[in-house]
């Protein structure tokens, strides 16, 4: 946390004609770090990623907030400058590798295109580099695969190709939006393993968007929990899973069946979080209030901000924060 952040998102509010799916959201990513952004669908985590890349749909508007990348305000960059940032300094991979690849071009051509655009390589050297990249992302037999069309590849292979394109210009930050949600569990393990070794070898930072707390625990350094467009809790991954503070995070951990827990349906029911995320629409206070077991009248007045509660730990829940030992604000450093 003491390092100057590579990425600093603060006060981000994204407005659509129908509402504000992201409101006053912020977090930082340090160089080389893996930060997980966790939330369920509708939490605004993917929109946040698109806002960082300035790839939001046209109907969306950034109402407030800044995104600083290596000190530069990305929202203030002219579009041609931003185009140089995309792909070269910040790259992104998506959940569905089938629709993200162009079906009528070979994977080699698609990787080479990135290299020719950003690095100005010749066709021949771009192809050579494309084969190296396929090898780097552990595609077996890259000399043959380079001429394959996307539909010939399995889901896992396609995601590897997407990763090869993303890391082609050795970006400083890779945003992975649910990169393994469409994949099988054994393939998911391979892809996450690959992302981790690329992060280490290329010195990238990784912003990992996921809904899976197991992935967070296994792969992330730090984690930001989002709920209905706002930050709920931020902590080191181990601290969050070991001692969740926000009622939503607690509820999620209690509600998920886990392989290491011995709970069986014959012995008892799962703890539920009642209701659904859509209850947050139009809530003037904390978005989690309609589902929260600890809700108090004061929670309904205004959405609580993320406040430091322990070193390296932020929480947006005043009732829980009040039960914790007060901390020395100077020691937190934020």
């Amino acid at each position, binding site marked *: 946390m003491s390092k100057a952040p590579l990425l600093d998102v603060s006060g981000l509010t994204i407005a659509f004609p129908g509402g504000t799916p992201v409101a006053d959201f912020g977090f930082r990513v340090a160089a080389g770090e893996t930060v997980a952004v966790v939330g*369920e*669908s509708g939490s605004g985590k993917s929109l946040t990623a698109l806002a960082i890349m300035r790839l939001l749909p046209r109907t969306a508007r950034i109402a407030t907030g800044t995104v600083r990348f290596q000190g530069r305000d990305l929202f203030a960059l002219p579009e041609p400058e931003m185009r140089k940032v995309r792909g070269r300094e910040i790259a992104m991979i998506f959940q569905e590798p089938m629709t993200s690849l162009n079906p009528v071009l070979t994977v080699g051509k698609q990787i080479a295109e990135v290299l020719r655009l950003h690095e100005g390589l010749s066709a021949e050297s771009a192809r050579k580099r494309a084969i190296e990249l396929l090898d780097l992302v*552990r595609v077996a037999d890259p000399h043959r695969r380079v001429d394959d069309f996307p539909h010939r590849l*399995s*889901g*896992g*292979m396609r995601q590897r190709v997407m990763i090869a394109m993303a890391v082609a210009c050795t970006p400083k930050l890779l945003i992975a939006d649910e990169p393994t949600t469409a994949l*099988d*569990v*054994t*393939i*998911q*393990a*391979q892809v*996450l*393993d690959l992302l*981790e070794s690329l992060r280490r070898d290329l010195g990238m930072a990784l912003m990992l968007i996921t*809904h*899976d*707390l*197991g*992935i*967070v*625990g*296994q*792969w992330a350094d730090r984690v930001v929990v989002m709920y209905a467009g706002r930050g709920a809790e931020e902590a080191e*991954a*181990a601290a969050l*899973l070991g001692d969740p503070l926000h009622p939503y995070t607690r*509820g*999620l951990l209690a*509600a*998920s*069946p*886990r*392989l*290491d827990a011995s*709970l*069986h*349906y*014959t012995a008892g*029911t*799962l*703890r*539920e*979080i*009642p209701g*659904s*995320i*859509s209850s947050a629409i139009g809530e003037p206070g904390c978005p989690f209030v309609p589902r929260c077991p600890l809700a108090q009248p004061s929670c309904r007045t205004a959405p609580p901000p993320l406040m430091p509660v322990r070193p390296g730990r932020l929480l947006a829940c005043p009732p829980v924060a009040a039960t914790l030992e007060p901390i020395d604000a100077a020691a937190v450093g934020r």
Partner: protein
Amino acid sequence: MPLLSVVDLHTHFRTPEGELRAVDGVSLTVDKGESVGLVGESGCGKSTLGKAVLRLVQPTSGSVGFDGEEVSRLPADALGPFRRRAQMIFQDPFSSLNPRHTIERILTAPLYVHGIGDRAERKRRVPRMIEQGGLPLSSLSRYPHEFSGGQRQRIGIARALILGPELVVCDEPVSALDLSIQAQILNLLVEMKREYGLSYLFISHDLSVIRYFANRVLVMYLGRIVESAAGADLWARPLHPYTRALIQAIPDPARRRQAAPIGGDIASPLDIPKGCRFHPRCPIATSICTKVDPALVRHGDGHEAACHHAGQLTRPPEA
């Protein structure tokens, strides 16, 4: 006698690329009141198996016995009684409900088609079912698109249960839902099981969900059952290297930044490897595995595995 007993079931499809062996010789039983978990990755044929059991896909060969009666060869117009007793819950709560029908119509139609009750009786039964599914009565006059994913899945469950079935095949019933909703639906399924004494064939790719929900677990790989055991036994003592890999592949903070348990891709059911179908990805495969297709063999009480080196953690020395 088991409620459902499947013997050597095959379901093959003819495709332009050749014969696709989705289900390739599966035998299983589901006892009355039992919840059997069927776990495997995409393309392993688990979904086709579920549909073949319910005669939603015509099996190529093999037998499906339901309460002592062979149903795999029944003519379509004689399936009525079986349809009432065996139902399905689908994965995708968005495509499994007819978008043009109100919830009332969706729930009334099965009763009407099977001639259950008169108008008044149906008018009583439908609201009772929707309330048991955990939805307000006002839902009845609405259309599916007015509901969230979790609520739609409740409607799907109500539709499956309105005929009073004994066996319910659940095909990934929670995998399209958000984590905070999954527990609600799993709890509802448990409640319905208690209420009606249902038997479940519970299909999922998610071992943690299976662990919670199943009495007995079948692990499927490329059209075959490769391991079968009581739940607790399977988690404690997985015998097949694939089961072990599946368990180890689940993201877990305890395995912080550990490498993936197995490499390679799932082979295509169009081109099933010779010998043991898992051998190209198997960390302990030997030469016998490339030649001989292992049968499902008993290894202790109720625990079966189809592996030449069942229970071994490292590659045995070649003879």
